[in-house]
């Protein structure tokens, strides 16, 4: 039977993949074709989604973007045997966007049937967990530490150190929490791995369990991701049935269970302590630290809280060894990073590569510039709390420290591209507005500052004492930056100040104090 792959990934589904799959299913039945339809993850070339692939003697041939209503013409044109067609992309592996990547964490995503454990194993799955069980907790932690893996949720904290702290902490129970809140605009890597390779996250969490002695895992998954919720729940249930999870993980003495918990639409619940309060059934307010979650986390117990991609990177680190991972990257940013390109970009999607490419290479060469065909003017890197970068800073390499040196951040590695029609004053206003909407209200600089900032930028837009009000905005940003309890209030100044600093002409062309720095 020939396999026909039609993604179940949200990119594809949002553009009609479910309808397309139904159409093909009907054709296969009506014409008694020897075709098996597999709902796979996305290969990450979002601008080509829904992208279908058909297995042929020459390999998997892709076509896209497919639209609902096209199935019959495609079949008649011989697409099921790889025939030529205007939408034929050819082999994904040979596509420039794909060929230029180093697929480490996403190596299976889009290739396998996400819910088939057999497929998972056939593509190297569970090797990391098997090895982890074999070498034991201490060695696992040493490997993760040696790999140089840093948290992909934004702060870039060394994962091995976090795991070691939890391993050494005393507690009646310990927890592994996967932060799948992925609230940053412009990011979708967590979603894609959960939809396209859910066992990879399950395996990563189980490895963290082996390393720390934790027996229970939670995936805190945002409610805006209905597809990921369904896929993850089904995968967990199958992993249980197969003995990957449960009272004896892969037949070992380790106990590990996972449960999906659905968020309720609060951006701040991506912040780790707020997330823990939310899991406990409380208002998602940020906690004072210390105590660290690693010492007193969920229900007061030692807790590893890691981003989805952090956890999903560990199976391959364990199976291929720390050295292979550490050998990639630059400076203190080791390994690969799944870069997410969105907004007004020609080739949007997910691009996994070692750290170190320049922003310009990523946006212009990989992303192909804007979708509108107009010049790129600004890119926001790292979500709503990330800085706007002008084209003059496109030589900045993708690396935690290099971005910090330019008053920016990598965050969860989302890049949103804007063309020259963008109004940076409107973007600065939005940054304050977003902070005001999402503030948890615990501290004054954020709760009050965001609202004041929003009002003040509005005045500048209306031409009301722009120079004085810009000084006021700058003061507010300083207060928020240094007086906020968490990065929601503390980092909102990044998008605001970067907009003012790099695009002064949008703020009534007033000479900027900051611009002179």
């Amino acid at each position: 039977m020939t396999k026909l792959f039609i993604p179940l990934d949200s990119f594809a589904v949002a553009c009609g993949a479910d309808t397309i799959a139904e159409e093909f299913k009907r054709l296969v039945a009506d014409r008694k074709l020897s075709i098996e339809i597999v709902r796979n993850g996305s290969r990450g070339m979002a601008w080509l989604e829904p992208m279908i692939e058909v297995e042929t003697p020459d390999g998997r041939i892709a076509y896209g973007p497919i639209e609902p209503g096209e199935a019959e013409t495609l079949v008649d044109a011989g697409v099921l045997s790889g025939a030529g067609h205007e939408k034929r992309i050819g082999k994904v592996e040979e596509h420039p966007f794909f060929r230029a990547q180093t697929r480490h964490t996403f190596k299976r995503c889009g290739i396998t049937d996400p819910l088939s454990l057999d497929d998972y194993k056939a593509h190297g799955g569970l090797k990391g967990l098997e090895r982890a069980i074999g070498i034991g907790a201490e060695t696992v932690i040493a490997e993760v530490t040696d790999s140089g893996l840093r948290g992909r949720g934004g702060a870039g904290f060394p994962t091995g150190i976090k795991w070691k702290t939890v391993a050494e902490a005393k507690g009646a129970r310990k927890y592994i929490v996967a932060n799948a809140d992925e609230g940053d605009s412009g990011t979708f890597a967590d979603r894609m791995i959960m939809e396209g390779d859910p066992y990879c996250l399950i395996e990563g969490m189980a490895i963290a369990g082996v390393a720390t002695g934790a027996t229970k895992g939670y995936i805190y998954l945002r409610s805006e991701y209905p597809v990921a919720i369904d896929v993850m729940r089904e995968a967990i249930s199958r992993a249980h049935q197969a003995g990957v999870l449960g009272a004896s993980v892969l037949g070992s003495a380790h106990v590990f269970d996972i449960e999906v918990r659905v968020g309720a639409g609060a951006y701040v619940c991506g912040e780790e302590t707020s997330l823990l309060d939310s899991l406990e059934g409380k208002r998602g307010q940020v906690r004072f630290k210390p105590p660290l979650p690693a010492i007193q986390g969920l229900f007061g117990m030692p807790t590893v809280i890691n981003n989805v991609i952090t956890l999903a990177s560990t199976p391959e680190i364990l199976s291929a060894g720390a050295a292979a991972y550490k050998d990639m990257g630059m400076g203190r940013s080791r390994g690969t990073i799944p870069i997410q390109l969105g907004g007004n970009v020609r080739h949007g999607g997910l691009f996994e590569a070692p750290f170190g490419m320049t922003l310009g290479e990523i946006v212009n060469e990989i992303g192909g510039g804007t979708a509108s065909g107009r010049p790129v003017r600004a890119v926001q890197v790292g979500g709503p709390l990330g800085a706007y970068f002008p084209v003059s800073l496109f030589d900045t390499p993708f690396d935690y420290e290099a971005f910090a040196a330019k008053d920016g951040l990598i965050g969860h590695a989302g890049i949103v591209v804007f063309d020259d029609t963008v109004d940076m004053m409107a973007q600065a206003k939005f940054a304050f507005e977003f902070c005001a909407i999402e503030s948890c209200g615990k501290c004054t600089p954020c709760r009050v500052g965001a609202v004041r900032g929003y009002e003040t930028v509005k005045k500048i837009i209306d031409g009301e004492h722009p120079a004085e009000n810009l000084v006021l905005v700058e003061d507010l940003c300083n207060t928020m930056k240094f007086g906020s309890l968490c990065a929601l209030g503390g980092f909102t100044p990044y998008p605001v100040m970067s907009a003012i600093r790099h695009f002064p002409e949008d703020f009534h062309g007033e000479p900027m104090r900051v611009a002179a720095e």
Partner: protein
Amino acid sequence: MVFQARYDEAEAAEIIGEHRHLEGPLLPILHGIQERFGHVSEEAVRQVAAALNLTRAEVHGVVTFYHDFRKAPAGRHVLKVCRAEACQAAGGDAIAGAIETALGVKFGETTPDGQVTLEAVYCLGLCATAPSAMLDRRIVGRLSEAKIGALVEEARL
């Protein structure tokens, strides 16, 4: 589709019973209640608080903290349109405006016939197929002026 079922204490008790054995059962219970009854009413708050040994103020505080939970019924359908940066960059503001016009309501409002509630959402993880929206549980990407007609039509059904 969002159900506007009449509150039923026995059913609510069933939902509570399904989840109360969980660690930190409150959010799963509130999700269950809202899915069944369309919103979390004062009656529901009282019943959940009593069942979990919490004060009404505590439960009320949780319900009002999260954007997802509503204290009052919404329209039969909820259309959430992404207003975050990637969608802005892809022309989302114009799309959002056109949706407001087509529905005849502003964000945060429900059409007079009670069919559709229009809400803002901040990122659906569809930033590379922007602008995007979600109608109840169905996600929609690459919104264009042309696609809005069909989407609004569907929401009005």
